[in-house]
């Protein structure tokens, strides 16, 4: 599949890189994610309800899409959201497990349980941006650019998909996370060979 990468974002607890350039660094004591939310003027209060996996995916996708420019929040179905990690929704899973660990303190919360699915982050990005296209979360036994590239190429086999917001989003705790996102765009000069 003839595609090209248009814009990249790398986000860790220590720094934010956009298109390979350092844009922000964490300051001890502050939540880096909340700092970035304010720095980039993201007016989306739902952010504060999200679990850490969603926050990381949301922040990285917002910065990536601002970089792309153009009008946002227009309903479209030609953009897929395909994200990857190894540990699924482990942090939310452990949080929910603590609420049901014993019968004396049994208080399962729907607002925690709903985040115990990795594809909630792909859903949050689709909702934020009004993307009606394909959304999918794929788990790999380890981070493999080759396996991700193959899955991204396959996503373009959907006749409606012309671009994919994609990459690795892992968050195993509030302080251990990594997002490496990119926009993958189909080269206009090459027809979609899978389209029939």
């Amino acid at each position, binding site marked *: 599949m003839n595609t090209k990468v248009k814009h990249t974002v790398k986000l860790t607890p220590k720094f934010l890189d956009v298109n390979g350039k350092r844009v922000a660094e964490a300051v001890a004591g502050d939540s880096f994610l909340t700092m970035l939310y304010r720095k980039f003027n993201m007016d989306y209060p739902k952010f504060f309800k999200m679990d850490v996996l969603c926050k990381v995916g949301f922040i990285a996708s917002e910065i990536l899409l601002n970089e792309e420019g153009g009008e946002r929040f227009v309903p479209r179905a030609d953009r897929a959201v395909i994200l990857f990690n190894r540990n699924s929704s482990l942090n939310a899973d452990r949080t929910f497990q603590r609420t049901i660990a014993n019968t004396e303190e*049994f208080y399962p919360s729907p607002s925690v349980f709903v985040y115990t699915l990795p594809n909630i982050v792909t859903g949050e990005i*689709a909702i934020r941006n009004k*993307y009606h296209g394909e959304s999918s979360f*794929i788990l790999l*036994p380890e981070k493999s650019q*080759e396996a991700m590239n193959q899955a991204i190429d396959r996503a373009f086999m959907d006749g409606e998909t012309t671009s994919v917001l994609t990459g690795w989003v892992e968050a195993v705790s509030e302080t251990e996370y990594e997002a490496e996102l990119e926009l993958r765009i189909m080269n206009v000069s090459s027809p979609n060979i899978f389209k029939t």
Partner: protein
Amino acid sequence: MIVKKIGESIISPLGFTVEENFQSVMNGRSELRRYESLWNLPFPCFVSLIPDEILEAELARELSANVVASFRTKFEKIALLSAVKSVKQSGIDPKSERVIFILSSTKGNVELLADENLDLERVTPAHTAQRMANFFGNPNMPITVSNACISGLCAQIEAYRCLMSGQYDAAVVIGADVLSPFIVAGFQSLKALSDEQCRPFSANRRGLNLGEAAAAVVYTVADDSADGWRMLAGAVRNDANHISGPSRTGEGSYRALCSVLNDSGLTANDLACLNVHGTSTMYNDEMESIAINRAGLNAVPVNAMKGYYGHTLGAAGILETLLTMRALEDGKVPATRGFDELGVTQPVLVTSEPIDTQKRAFVKLLSGFGGCNAAASFNGYGL
């Protein structure tokens, strides 16, 4: 080139082969039961469980004792058992670099989080997928699709693409989930569970039932003249509306249905049935009735399998596809167990009894949290 089914299996409370499961469904059987305090949970629930002793006996017949010991959780056991049976039936060489393993699961080994000696590495289904690929000696990195309740269709769509792109010659697609206090308490906290038999599309429906199952299907490429079950097309679409509530307009399901009908060249008239999600929650069934009507499929018989098995999560998309195929081979669309009086706003032809059909094409529909929806179309040639 087409994508064709060459192997299958179902591991469920209704049997350990597709045939046993099919006969149970046609006889109206279910193992859905009410439990007053399953695993000491402080509420009653209505679920379908695979009995451990029957599972262990089946494992002993199919696998060596040291394999059974190393795949020690129920999730690992039923996933591997379904994979082994389907691979055996398909006749493929699972060691080939032209074969890919694809797993569908929502929560995998999540019950391990309650273990005192927690092995965190083992919790993710990606770990189970790798161990299964290793078991078969397969050299490729396995893919695990985890898209909530639509995972079983997403995994088949991924397989379809792996084959149609020419990258692989065969794909082993395994869907599995087991129940645990984690999952049951979670769905209960969402007020999504009914403590009585679920009633898909019925006026008096009160929520879903959960169930355990694994199901596997092996697909391969074949030439255009091949007989058998073909996967024709698949699509995944998002409501872009809400993370845990279905769209009021059935947006994602409608779009997925339209895409699949368009890509496979099928019209409403070609379809023997539409096998839907039909969870028996107020919102899901209503949403599906809207999507079905918007897609112009209101004259197509609709059936749902949740009344036999409960919602089997990551297995549902594969289990329900395989049972629909098997029933159509006999010219039957199964009854929707639990359905009585239609209780959605849009007209939907829900099957209350098995019906006869000459047609062999059908569409499978699913929707899930995260606003995701999936549809896929299948057709049986020469059957």
